[in-house]
């Protein structure tokens, strides 16, 4: 079984990746815009927050700046697509590659440590909780607030216009919705959330690293698809909840897989496990239906 520390550690990263899953839900599901920018905007958020904290900024302000940086990155991807008519996937790859250089420029070196710096977590350690419980508490609050705001936004006039843009762009235009503007706004908000995730990740891990974004898109997608397999997204609220639940389940599954000695798995097998989990998450819901049909037929 998992130790307490491993369990809370999995929860902590799961909650952070829940924010990434929100972002991916916005781009992939709501806007139908396959956006790989997140592999760059995650370390961008981390780099911006880390550098500003080291420069003496209030950690919450630094985190806010990370959100804005992420939004700017997302806006660039969307504008490449909307204004220059570059294929959405390719546009996001271009931004992602560009961000690698930009992140190195921001930090001035491949990684920056935040040891001994005040982070958003610092005041919460004084509450008397175990040190490994503190990030879980704070990140639960952050993700709760984000979920509520996103949910309200999706129900708003602008949010509804955004959902229509992704679902049926011609109909959206006929209703007077500037679909290009909606794509820019949506992809920006999506990457803002990922920037926030990167900023929190850097502060809880005590470092920002230029390579920390590799595979974020896969983990986010794994969380999204896994969550949808557990909670059928029949409403916006359930879809958002599925993102959080999926991200936590994903991290717990990874932690279990790595902890189970009998399986003989090691940390370097992480990406292999991810690929297997994503495949299972995609295949299983379909398999469940066909199994149930078989069962029904036998009964009949």
């Amino acid at each position, binding site marked *: 079984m998992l130790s307490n520390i491993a369990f809370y550690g999995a929860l902590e990263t799961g909650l952070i990746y829940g924010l990434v899953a929100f972002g991916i839900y916005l781009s992939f599901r709501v806007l139908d815009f396959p956006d790989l920018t997140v592999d760059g905007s995650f370390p961008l958020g981390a780099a911006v927050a880390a550098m500003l904290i080291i420069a003496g900024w209030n950690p919450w302000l630094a985190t806010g700046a990370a959100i804005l940086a992420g939004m700017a990155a997302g806006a660039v991807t969307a504008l490449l697509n909307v204004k220059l008519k570059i294929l959405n996937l390719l546009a996001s790859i271009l931004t992602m590659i560009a961000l690698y250089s930009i992140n190195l420029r921001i930090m001035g070196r491949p990684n920056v440590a935040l040891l001994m710096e005040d982070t958003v977590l610092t005041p919460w350690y004084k509450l008397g909780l175990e040190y490994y419980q503190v990030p879980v508490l704070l990140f639960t609050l952050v993700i709760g607030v984000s979920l509520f705001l996103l949910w309200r936004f999706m129900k708003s006039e602008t*949010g509804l216009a955004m959902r*229509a843009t992704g679902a049926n762009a011609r109909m959206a235009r*006929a*209703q*007077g919705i*500037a679909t290009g503007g909606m794509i820019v706004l949506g992809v920006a908000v999506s990457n803002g959330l990922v920037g926030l995730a990167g900023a929190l990740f850097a502060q809880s891990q005590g470092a920002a690293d230029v390579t920390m974004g590799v595979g974020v898109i896969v983990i986010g997608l794994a969380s999204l698809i896994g969550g949808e397999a557990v909670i059928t997204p029949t409403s916006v609220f359930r879809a958002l909840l599925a993102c959080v639940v999926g991200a936590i389940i994903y991290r717990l599954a990874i932690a279990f897989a790595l902890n189970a000695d009998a399986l003989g798995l090691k940390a370097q097998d992480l990406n292999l496990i991810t690929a297997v989990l994503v495949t299972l998450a995609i295949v299983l819901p379909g398999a469940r239906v066909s199994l149930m049909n078989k069962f029904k037929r036998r009964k009949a």
Partner: protein
Amino acid sequence: MITATDLRLTFGEGTPLENPALRGMSLTVNQGEFVTVIGSNGAGKSTFLNALAGEVLVDSGKILVDNINVTKLPTHKRTGRVARVFQDPLAGTCEGLSIEENLALAIKRGKRRGLGTAVKKQYLERFRSSLATLGLGLENRLTDKMGLLSGGQRQAVSLLMASLTPSSILLLDEHTAALDPKTASFVLELTQNIIAEQKLTALMVTHSMKQALEVGTRTVMLHQGEVVFDIAGKDREGLEVKDLLNLFEQQRGLTVDDDSLLLS
């Protein structure tokens, strides 16, 4: 009121597939008129409608809606004046959204969208009473997903959505063509009722000469991107399909060879 003057548009100019869709099309539709538009395949009916809606921009010519020049405006900036129902029943509504959400999108057509709740309580009564006029029982299914409705039901809701907020012109692009005959006549009747009740100005493209003469107040026939004849009022009364064909032959010295025009 709509005034289209000398519209020209060529698809794929300078390529082997060059296709002049509009060749100097001019048409004025006055307030309160219900114009039916006919023409064989490739006559430019859909292109003309798309040009009015803003989905395609014309190469030259001028489009005025209520004396405002909209020639260069993209679709979403025209929607305050131009409402539209598509041929494909799935195109006019969003299947992933509920009926009330679709209507809430339409009630804001051409207006600013903010951060307030989209489906406001004060809308619901209006949604219910307009849906009730359809007689499909949809007024009790406001929160159902649009995807659960049949093609005919969705087309009826599309029509409702197009008439929920006032517009200078309603564009109907063969909006009954993809429906079975019974549903098609239901949607057509509904169209006539809505246009009559709200005194809408409308332009309806149809593939059926019979329908073109039975419905509306004026009939326009397009051929090769131009208007070949335009009849209204007394001239139009009592006119039959064979009269239309004669008219067409007189005008052009051509015979209509598009079977679907004659048979439907």
